[in-house]
């Protein structure tokens, strides 16, 4: 009896430990399979034609630059929207709103984070696209700008949740100290609370940007999917095509093991590496702040 109990305990402990380590295994597996299917690209397509401005796989033009600039333009646009609205809302929820308001707003913002991106893309097509075409007087409403607007909305909840958390964990004594010195609440927010929560807010922004880079369906549905290379300012108001949308749109139609298939995996590999860099930076910012908080407490 005694012995079987300890055996069971041993096996269960190992199982639990294995589950814990599975996260590492999955990241490794994902990276391995992306490399396995993506790296043959470098053998089949030479670098100079890969770093080209023409993406036209049917005639074996695999220039990925327009896809990268597409992702870049849309993401920058989304960041410009998500940062002010995200931080503004976080400050409102954490510092300005009365308690009951906070209890209502937080679940609503979380709800936005849970809305399927395909629903947002669908509404984007039906509601945003025609209005943008009309107001901006464009030949089509399917533009990088439309994608930016939608992506901004999708990135906002990430920014709000993380930033609000950071603001909330600033010790109350900081604010009281500032008030006691005669600062208004507004001055306290700008000169004490926000600077104290800086690293957490930055983490939120990083994660929001990461979310925007990786978003697929909504962006594919509203940006018009034209892999055109241009970095002028008005390219924001013409159709674009992101890296994620390219994979989603073309993977279904390629033959397994073809060059096109390998190039799409290669793009996926790039996305994986980008998201990894973004997340490592974001989490190291987070770690630093934690250490400082511990230092203050001790």
């Amino acid at each position, binding site marked *: 009896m005694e012995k079987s109990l300890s055996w069971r305990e041993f096996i269960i*402990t190992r199982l*639990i*430990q294995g*589950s*814990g*380590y*599975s*996260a*590492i295994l*999955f*990241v490794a*597996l*994902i990276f391995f*399979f*992306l490399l396995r*299917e993506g790296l043959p690209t470098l053998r089949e397509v030479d670098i100079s034609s890969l770093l080209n401005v023409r993406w036209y796989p049917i005639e074996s033009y695999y220039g990925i630059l327009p896809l990268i600039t597409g992702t870049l333009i849309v993401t920058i646009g989304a960041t410009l929207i998500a940062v002010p*609205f995200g931080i*503004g*809302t976080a400050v*409102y929820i954490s510092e*300005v*709103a009365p308690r009951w308001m906070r209890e209502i*707003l937080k679940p*609503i*913002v*979380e*709800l936005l984070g*849970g*809305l*399927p991106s*395909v*629903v947002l*893309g*669908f*509404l984007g097509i*039906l*509601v945003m696209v025609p209005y943008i075409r009309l107001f901006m007087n464009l030949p089509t409403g399917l533009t990088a700008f439309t994608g930016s607007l939608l992506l901004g*909305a999708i990135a906002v909840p990430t920014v*709000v949740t993380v930033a609000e958390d950071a603001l909330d964990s600033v010790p109350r004594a900081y604010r009281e100290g500032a008030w006691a010195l005669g600062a*208004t609440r*507004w*001055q306290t927010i700008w000169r004490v609370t926000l600077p104290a929560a800086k690293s957490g807010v930055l983490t939120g922004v990083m*994660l929001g940007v990461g*979310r925007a880079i*990786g978003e*697929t369906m909504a962006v594919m*549905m509203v940006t018009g999917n034209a892999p055109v290379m241009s970095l002028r300012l008005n390219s924001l108001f013409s159709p674009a095509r992101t890296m*994620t949308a390219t*994979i*989603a749109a073309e*993977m279904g139609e390629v033959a*397994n093991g073809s060059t096109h298939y390998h190039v799409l995996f290669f793009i*996926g590999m790039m996305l*994986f590496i980008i998201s*990894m860099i*973004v*997340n*490592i930076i*974001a*989490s190291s910012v987070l770690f630093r702040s934690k250490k400082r908080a511990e230092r203050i407490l001790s």
Partner: protein
Amino acid sequence: MVTRFLARHRYTVQRIGFAVITLTAIFTVLPIIGTIIYIFVKGISAISVEFLTGFPSNGMREGGIYPAIVGTFYLTIGTAIFSVPLGIAAAVYLSEYASNNKWTRLIRLAIVNLAGIPSVVYGLFGLGLFVLFLQFGTSILAAALTLSIMTLPVVISTAEEALRAVPQPFRTVSISLGATRWQTIRRIVLKEALPGILTGVILGLERAAGETAPILFTGAAFFLPQLPQSPFDATMALPYHLFVISTQVPEMPIQIQYGTALVLLVFVLTMNIIATVIRSRARAKRQW
């Protein structure tokens, strides 16, 4: 000069500042509520018994969305089967067993990374590993496995948070009464943390139910004349169906599009509301 001006009028500045901040919050929240109401209003007239229980006909332009509803249900259940036990076990490891060393930090880094990987990259991975390498084919199994790995970080981090919220004395007392570590975890810690874990699980599954990109090449079918018969069959799914009928089918009646969006929204919202209710109830009931 400016500083002094601002200092003299600091309450005016505060009033303007608060107004601006409040406006950003309003502009963030109103579109969310607007979106939901808009889809309800536009979609409700499409909802009927035939729509919910019928098969699509005439190239999806008529009939119902029953196979897509069933498909999303299967995928969600499948995702739960894989991600819930694994995710909770991993959370138990991190909260109850792991010491704060290099390996634990690596696990945490891996979880953060999993959470950040773009959904379409999960799709590629699922295609490479489950569909082609393990030869599951385009199937519910491959799609559910892909979705579960994507859901895992959400389940792990929320479950770990719930486990950590259980006060240390609960464990100490149980162990001092002669219970083993696993007995303590199973009968005391997991039981106390259950509502929090449940919330995390539902929020994770909610995400999985609404995702399209990971199932695009691993399990989603454009149209099927019958329901999937086994886990090795492909399936229709609500999010993919909405994508298809709103972008790929010409002259698609707008009514059916809004109806499909509404059903998907209700599916996701219901899960979200259940999660929120469980969480707030548990908070109210908690005695520690």
